[in-house]
């Protein structure tokens, strides 16, 4: 029962935030500041996670392709996997873990210290000033980080294939676009935009309604990561089926 009530509260919260996103005025400067903050904070974790995943992908891919003698297609496999799945999902996991949880912690601390109440008392809409910029920042930053992550993943594949396993560099770069289409890149960007909306709303919701002192803030941060990761992994299945589908 409580979960259903929470889901309803979340829906109302999302609708209120959505209404404020669509109607003026917007906190442009605040949004830019949060976008910059989240992008710079997530940059290193995203590259540091996607790069080794590209390396692993190349390591295992080489084993499969050696059966066919088709090692030259390795970079195509790496780039399809990175653009469609690996980079969108991993970048979003790290945005949730680093950016989303930071937003939940900030808003939660504001709620506990009654700063949000103070904002409301001064007749300032706290959703407009504190929540909307953070949601927009997540939505803007996630696709950008996804692109950077894709480049890191392909670089990781290059590192394993060429520097460690002695494949030819020219063949690797030449075949990157053999199976990948621009629709894969845009599909990945679209997916990360949706994931960004989910992360932004869930993080700000958890922070905005945090209760119970310092422990409550910790719980809000914890729940943010877990719930948003679950939400977008489930969304990912349906988005992949819809966007990339099975080519019959």
């Amino acid at each position, binding site marked *: 029962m409580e979960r259903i009530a929470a889901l309803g509260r979340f829906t109302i919260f999302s609708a209120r935030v959505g209404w404020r996103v669509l109607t003026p005025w917007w906190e442009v400067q605040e949004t830019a500041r949060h976008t910059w903050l989240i992008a710079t904070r997530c940059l290193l*974790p995203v590259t*540091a*996670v996607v790069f*080794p*995943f590209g*390396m*692993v*992908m190349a*390591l*295992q891919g080489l*084993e*499969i392709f050696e*059966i*066919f003698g*088709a090692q030259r*297609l390795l970079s195509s*496999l790496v780039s*399809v*996997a990175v653009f*469609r*799945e690996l980079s969108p999902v991993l970048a979003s*996991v*790290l945005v949730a*873990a*680093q950016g989303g*949880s*930071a937003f*939940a*912690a*900030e808003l*939660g*601390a504001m709620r*506990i*210290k009654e700063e949000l109440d103070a904002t409301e008392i001064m007749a300032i809409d706290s959703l407009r000033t504190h929540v909307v910029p953070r949601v927009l920042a997540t939505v803007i930053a996630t696709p950008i980080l996804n692109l950077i992550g894709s480049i890191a993943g392909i670089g990781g594949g290059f590192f394993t294939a060429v520097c460690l396993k002695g494949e030819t560099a020219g063949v690797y770069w030449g075949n990157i676009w053999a*199976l990948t289409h621009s629709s894969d890149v845009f599909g990945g960007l679209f997916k990360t935009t949706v994931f960004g909306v989910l992360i932004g709303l869930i993080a700000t919701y958890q922070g905005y309604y945090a209760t119970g*002192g*310092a*422990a*409550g*803030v*910790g*719980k*809000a*941060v*914890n729940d943010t*990561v*877990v719930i948003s*990761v*679950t939400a977008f*992994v*489930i969304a*990912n*299945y349906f988005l*992949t*089926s819809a966007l*990339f589908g*099975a*080519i019959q």
Partner: protein
Amino acid sequence: MNALAEFGRFGLFVATFARASATHPPPVRRSIEEAYRIGVLSLPILLIISAFVGTNLALQGYNAFAPLGGQRLVGMFVALAGVRELAPMMVASMVAAKAGTEMASQIAVMRIREQIDALEVMAINPHWFLITPRFIGILLVLPPLTVISIFTLTVSSYLVSTLQLGLNGAEFLAYFTDTTEPMDLVYCMIKAFFFGIIICLVSCFYGFNSKSGPNGVGEATNASVVVSAVSCALLNYLMSEILFSGRGL
């Protein structure tokens, strides 16, 4: 410079923890309680994530190999990418996100409420009292969680391959069992074991060194999940290279 100093502090923390665990009797009962809690906390989310990663793996493998006429190889792809790499990594990131953050925030709250100082005043070693049970607990529970995750992932990718993509189920299983062997389960459990060490130590470290106030707890929780996910991803590559490379198929 700052990161280097942090790394040094982490080393000291691990050394203190190791000495405390070695010189005190192991807390058997509390370790089992922690193991139970970590397992129960992480299991539902892990099942959901494993199932959906499995579905995507099948879709992805199908899309990657269909242009080459190799749709039949989805089973092999799931075995290589899913069983060897994704399942242990997923377990690590989910346990880091669920149990790790909880460890960090619990210990951080104890730190800012000065309960850790109170333990020291009562001549109870806080490293032994707080970290050792969590450490043993996570090590006990991570390998079985990995096996469960591998099973869920395989079943869901089998279902997607046969029901959504219309592949032959027997062929999927044949390629799957050709590519994996029982030893792979052991290797994955070894991976998970090392991930557990990292997650527990990193989370407890950030909890122990939390700054005061609700901000401090939030920051500690935040840092713990990011640092443990990044270090697990790096370690994963090294361990794949050591455990699986050169073994062929």
